[in-house]
């Protein structure tokens, strides 16, 4: 699929992806802004408050009625972290015009509504409607707290926070509970004005309409978007590994322990690290899966993720508390195996095939495409999925060893149970 990226206005870009095979169209509008402790919570709250009502559709009832009449179009607010940038905005999904029973046009009204949500929110006395502000603030605090409910996510987040202490990458995408509690209506409205006038806006469309029509619809929808000096997006600095690994432990009333391990990568050969990580713990064919799970039955899940922007690899697993040392040793042993090139041909072929499949099948999902191209735009990259696949195909075993030998243990996080109550 050929992506087409054009500039619509100062700091406003459109990524256009033609896709006739889908039943739906996807339209996304995302502000990309450096992730900062002071603004993360406010930006997250802004998108939630905006979703409550516009001048034309002032409450949830009116908005829902409008979306229902557009054949159940959805407009979800999103808050994502891409590298050290925060992306906030909306993703709309709606059935493709070809399948509208009366051949109604849906792109234009959905674009219009998207533009309204961003540029024309319902306000009272020059700020957001107080009830909307208050209830979304409560909801956001609840959402931040609720990370505790999924212990796997919780452990992954805690590992990253310890690993990247003092770095923007450690800031949670929704901000912190403490910062959100402090937000005031007036300040939030000012931050909203600043965000929409100075942050870069990334628009993305995927569907059957031609570029000209999409451009026209979006130009009309965002004609009142204020634009002032557009700020630069953040470029993530690679994580500098600790001399000596740190160990963090927490206790909770749980039945399963969570072991997380964070590693710094000294190499900038990203394609080789991507391959190395896939061999290590990135697939159901990986060393972690085959050994920690299948051979030793230590866990149900043990997998690793490569964080390209920060030069990090993190491992996540769920184990019996008393198997901590066994699992810890085995994870390090499997990393050592990858570093020493201790693998068979099929493992390399499998890892390549896994990555190739992931990149090529991306073209079959509008959601994956949107997430991928937003990530590229927010981190200053321009490769297409097939170009990335091409790079991976050219990685040699020597390069994998070299790159993986720079991978060093940095932080260990362990969530364990409380002593049984007497």
């Amino acid at each position, binding site marked *: 699929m050929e992506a087409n990226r054009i500039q619509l206005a100062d700091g406003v870009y459109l990524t256009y992806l033609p896709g006739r095979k889908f039943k739906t169209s996807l339209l996304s509008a995302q502000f990309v802004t450096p992730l900062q402790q002071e603004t993360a919570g406010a930006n997250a709250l802004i998108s939630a408050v905006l979703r409550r009502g516009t001048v034309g559709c002032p409450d949830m009832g009116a908005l829902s009625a409008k979306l229902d009449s557009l054949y159940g179009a959805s407009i979800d607010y999103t808050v994502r972290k891409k590298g050290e940038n925060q992306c906030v905005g909306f993703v709309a999904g709606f059935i493709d015009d070809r399948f509208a029973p009366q051949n109604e046009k849906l792109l234009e009204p959905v674009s219009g509504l998207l533009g309204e949500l961003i540029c024309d929110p319902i306000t009272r006395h020059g700020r957001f409607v107080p009830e909307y502000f208050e209830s979304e603030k409560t*909801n956001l605090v609840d959402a931040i707290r*609720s990370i505790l409910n999924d212990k796997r996510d919780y452990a992954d987040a805690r590992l990253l926070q310890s690993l990247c202490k003092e770095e923007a990458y450690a800031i949670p995408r929704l901000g912190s509970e403490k910062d959100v509690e402090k937000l005031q209506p007036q300040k939030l409205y000012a931050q909203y004005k600043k965000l929409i006038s100075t942050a870069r806006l990334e628009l993305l469309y995927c569907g059957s309409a031609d570029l000209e029509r999409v451009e026209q619809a979006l130009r009309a929808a965002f004609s009142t978007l204020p634009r002032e000096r557009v700020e630069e997006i953040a470029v993530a600095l690679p994580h500098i590994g600790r001399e000596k690994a740190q160990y963090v432990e927490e206790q909770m009333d749980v039945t399963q322990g969570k072991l997380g391990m964070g590693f710094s990568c000294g190499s900038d050969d990203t394609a080789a690290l991507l391959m190395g990580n896939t061999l290590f713990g990135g697939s159901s064919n990986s060393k972690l899966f085959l050994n920690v799970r299948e051979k030793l039955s230590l866990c149900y899940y043990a997998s690793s993720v490569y964080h390209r922007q920060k030069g990090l690899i993190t491992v996540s697993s769920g184990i019996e508390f008393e198997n901590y040392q066994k699992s810890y040793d085995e994870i390090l042993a499997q990393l050592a195996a990858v570093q020493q090139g201790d693998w068979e041909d099929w493992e390399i072929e499998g890892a390549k095939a896994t990555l190739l499949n992931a990149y090529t099948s991306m073209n079959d999902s509008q959601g994956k495409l949107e997430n991928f191209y937003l990530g590229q735009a927010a981190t200053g990259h321009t490769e297409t999925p097939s170009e990335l696949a091409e790079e991976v195909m050219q990685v040699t075993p020597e390069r994998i060893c070299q790159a993986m030998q720079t991978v060093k243990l940095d932080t260990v996080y362990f969530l364990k149970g409380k002593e049984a109550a007497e």
Partner: protein
Amino acid sequence: MKQTFYDRIGEAVYRETLENGLQIYVVSKPGYTKKYAFFATRYGGMDTRFCLDGTWEDTPAGIAHYLEHKMFDTREGNALQELAKNGAEPNAFTANAMTGYYFDSTEHFEENLRILLSFVSIPYFTDESVAKEQGIIGQEIRMIEDNPDWQIYTRMLQAMYQNHAARTSIAGTVESISHITAQTLYDCHRAFYTPSNMVLTVVGDVDPQHVVDLANRVLPKLSGPVIERDYGEEPEEVAQKEISLAMEVSAPQFLIGFKCKPVAPGPDYLRMDIIGDLACDILLGDSSPLYQRLYEKGLINTSFGGAFEMMPGVAYLYAGGDSKDAHTVSAEICKEARRLVEEGVDEEFFQRVKKAAYGSELRGLNSFETIAVAMTEGYFNGFDPLKFPQEFETVTAEDVRAFLAENITEEHAVLSLIVPKEA
């Protein structure tokens, strides 16, 4: 091979029944690079009691799921790795009434399909390999036991059903799975993994004849008998009105469930599914008056949602999320249902919700997995899921009102709660 075009939704399906009884569906998807195969048996977490060779067998809770894990073992090694070597992304799941094995791949599709058909139809277990899995599944059970979403849902079903096997946890418990042996797994495989109890669905840009030829080559020529199952006699009354558990969570959570009248297999099954979904949207969906009222009062937040579910002998509508006052929310839901029954469903609102629900069905067709699972459920329950546009046309506001009147009442309601543990 029979080919059907569904003009209104732009789909085409090839159908074939093999001599051994296996049903095959191929859903064409020109333009897509990904190809998806889903091989499923009508056997899930609730099929623990059945009649094999004239004797009634009681098998341990969690056995269908255990079998799913062990099916990937082959005489030569492990099918998961074989598929992954080809870049396929294989996986499997066990639901209450089915077990499905699937992969998607962009290359070597036919080779991958051969591997799928082969490992699912040829069991290979040893006592040692079965024992080893106890550790892995034991950790999976520990993981879900720490998950409040799983706890609240499972416990809601246990409150709702007195005897029906739907109240059995699909994964079982660490204790129940300890009784599973290689022999019990072989018996269950023989009983349920027989071609006439299975269906293969392929979605993508593939040659349907190749799929049929491959299945004929790889799968057994003959099928076993149809197995009788016993889900237990289920009265109309719920088992328990309220059930509660303390966990390490950030906020109290609730699920309210309404035990509904089950529907026999056939075209009515799809119709009831649509009516139940619409009733759920009209009663408490995002655009319902009740949702807005509760949201604005701060009684629910965006975590709130609901759905209507059906399986053999079972149907229920449920809704929930975080709330500081679950009892008030539950009472409001029952009250709104009563109001809708008394006053009827507003025609304009009904048409709007129907329009949205239609769009949502259509959007589901973007997902190969959604299509395959729908075709499979349709086969097991005697309906064609791609005929939803026709059903939508004939469903009326009165159908929804009648559904609410029969099912969404206080005596059919149960409440499942998770409360934060005191530190």
